């Protein structure tokens, strides 16, 4: 059975709106106006046990709203979801004891107390037997290298240290499904890498299912073979990360290192960068081989590469769509992969 099964999940928020100015303020006393924001619309997906899935989308795409519904914080407007066989928003104890939600921008530890006291609180909350708790805690402390931090009050920790402590605290009850919302936000690259390494290890060790949102593509590239892309609350893509470029990117990047720097290559494609003898061209995906052959024949370069554009660029292109949902994407490509 899949760990996560979502069918046509929709969440609509009703938000008050008012124009600026005193007149609008007066009018709002009599008649408040609202508009509907469709944060998530008709989302359907299935995640198998042990999968690590990157959940991608620009700000406001509906990622966090989706995670909040799946972790039981929010009731959907319509649609169904089952996580570990439970309807999340019923928030049954048995369900909450098997999942965790980590929000990178929120602290759930006891601010004024040493980290170990927060861990102790989580032991009591989840009713973990003492020996198992001690073993799990020591294991997490060792894996995350936070042994020297756990006796410090949370308020005295740096952001990165606090995030590692947060993650340890969130995993003490050994959840089977992890909802991670920007777990590396605001951290330096070294700390991001440590957390990524830890999460990969945790997944391998316990077979935990992970849904991860991150604006750092390095997180996604390192952890997720599969990505789900949503935009304007709708599913744009669900499939292997490696095929994302093929699906959305109509061009390839051709890099050539010339024997004779300075040659004009604009007839081969769009010149996007020139760095000494190295020229980077952007060419239609279908023409890439032909263009490469012509370059080799005409210029005998010392080096030539054909690559997909960097994943960050692909994602940027996917999200750089006008307000109409998915309008930059051909209609057949809006379907799940």
């Amino acid at each position, binding site marked *: 059975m*899949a760990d996560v099964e979502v069918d046509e999940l929709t969440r609509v*928020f009703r938000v008050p709106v008012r124009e600026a100015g005193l007149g609008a303020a007066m009018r709002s006393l009599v008649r408040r106006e609202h508009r509907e924001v469709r944060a998530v619309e008709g989302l359907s*997906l*299935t*995640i*198998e*046990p*042990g*999968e*690590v899935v990157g959940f991608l989308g620009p700000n406001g795409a509906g990622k966090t709203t989706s995670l*909040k519904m799946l*972790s*039981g*914080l*929010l*009731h959907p407007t319509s649609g169904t979801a089952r996580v570990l066989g439970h309807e999340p928003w019923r*928030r049954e*104890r*048995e369900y*909450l*004891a098997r*999942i*965790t*939600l980590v*929000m990178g*921008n*929120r602290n*759930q530890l*006891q601010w*004024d*107390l040493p980290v170990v*006291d927060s861990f*102790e*609180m989580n*032991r*009591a*909350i*989840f*009713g*973990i*037997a003492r*020996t*198992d*708790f001690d073993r*799990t805690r020591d294991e997490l402390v060792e894996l995350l290298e936070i042994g020297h931090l756990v006796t410090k009050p949370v308020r005295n920790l740096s952001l990165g240290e606090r995030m590692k402590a947060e993650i340890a605290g969130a995993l003490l*009850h*050994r959840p089977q499904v992890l909802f991670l919302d920007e777990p590396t936000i605001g951290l330096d690259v070294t700390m991001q890498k440590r957390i990524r390494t830890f999460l990969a290890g945790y*997944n*391998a*060790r*316990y*077979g935990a299912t992970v849904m991860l949102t991150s604006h750092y593509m390095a997180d996604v590239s390192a952890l997720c*073979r*599969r990505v*789900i892309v949503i935009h304007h609350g709708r599913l744009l893509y*669900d*499939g*292997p990360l490696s095929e994302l470029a093929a699906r959305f990117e109509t061009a390839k990047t051709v890099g050539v290192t010339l024997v004779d720097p300075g040659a004009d290559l604009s007839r081969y494609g769009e010149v996007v960068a020139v760095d000494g003898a190295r020229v980077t061209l952007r060419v239609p995906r279908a023409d890439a081989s032909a263009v490469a052959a012509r370059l080799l024949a005409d210029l005998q370069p010392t080096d030539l590469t054909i690559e997909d554009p960097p994943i960050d660029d692909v994602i940027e292109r996917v999200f750089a769509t006008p307000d109409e949902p998915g309008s930059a994407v051909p209609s057949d490509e809006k379907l*799940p*992969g």
Partner: protein
Amino acid sequence: MSADTAQQHRVPPPPARPPLARVGRPRQMLDFYATVARTAVQEQFQYRAANYMYMIGMVVEPVIYLVVWSVVAEASGGSVGGYTPGGFAAYYIVWMLVRNMNIVFTPYGWEFRIREGQLSGMLVRPIHPLHYDLAYFAGWKVIAVLLWVPIAVVLALLFPPELSVNLAQAATFFVAIWGAYVIRTLLLFVLGLVTLWTTRVAALFELYFAAELLLSGRLVPLDLMPDAVLRWVDLLPFRSTFGFPIEALVSDLSGPQLVRGLLAQLFWIGFGWLLAMVVWKRAIRRYSAVGN
């Protein structure tokens, strides 16, 4: 993506490890209450100076009532409605303890709790937030009582109380202050949940606290209230949260009156719990968790 595609990307999980051993629910709840209460004591010790300042600030209110009523009693030939200055001293010294015992999570705190994402954290735990509030503020009482003792001694020296307590009264008082605490927690929990319908709820809270001030025995011992007011008092929960525990210790309530007071508390606990659960179920559907 279809289930087939999902299957295609599945990372085969390693052999399942045995799940963590968990204790039974009753033991878990006891452990939870003890741990959270201990955490509250630890946290509040960090703020002992602030707590003492808070406590000293709280002395002002009963001392004003005490001075005013003592003057009125003396001007009225030594007593008002059966209360002598010594009787008022006993009433307001016990008042301080009861007031500290029924400090609970304020409904004003809900806006902060929602805005800062604390509620989201609470909702993904397998324990109802109400249990957390009950446990946390119960722990805080340890600090409140410790800080109350020296203040009560000083007040007793300045305003000698007339107090004669038998075992039944003392036992009832001990139970009643916890009953008052639970009732007030439940009622203010419900009041705080109104924040999930509208964010500007201060006026409603003020209305509640004004009614509580007048009808609980906080402003004036209820014995001094006119009969018309007392009829309302009997219909409302406020006496159970304030007046009854004080009266149990300082008034000459009979055995049946003490039992009746405890039964009234039991009724309000049942009513408050039911109300809290019903309102919670509806309120939480409105929680949007936006921004956190």
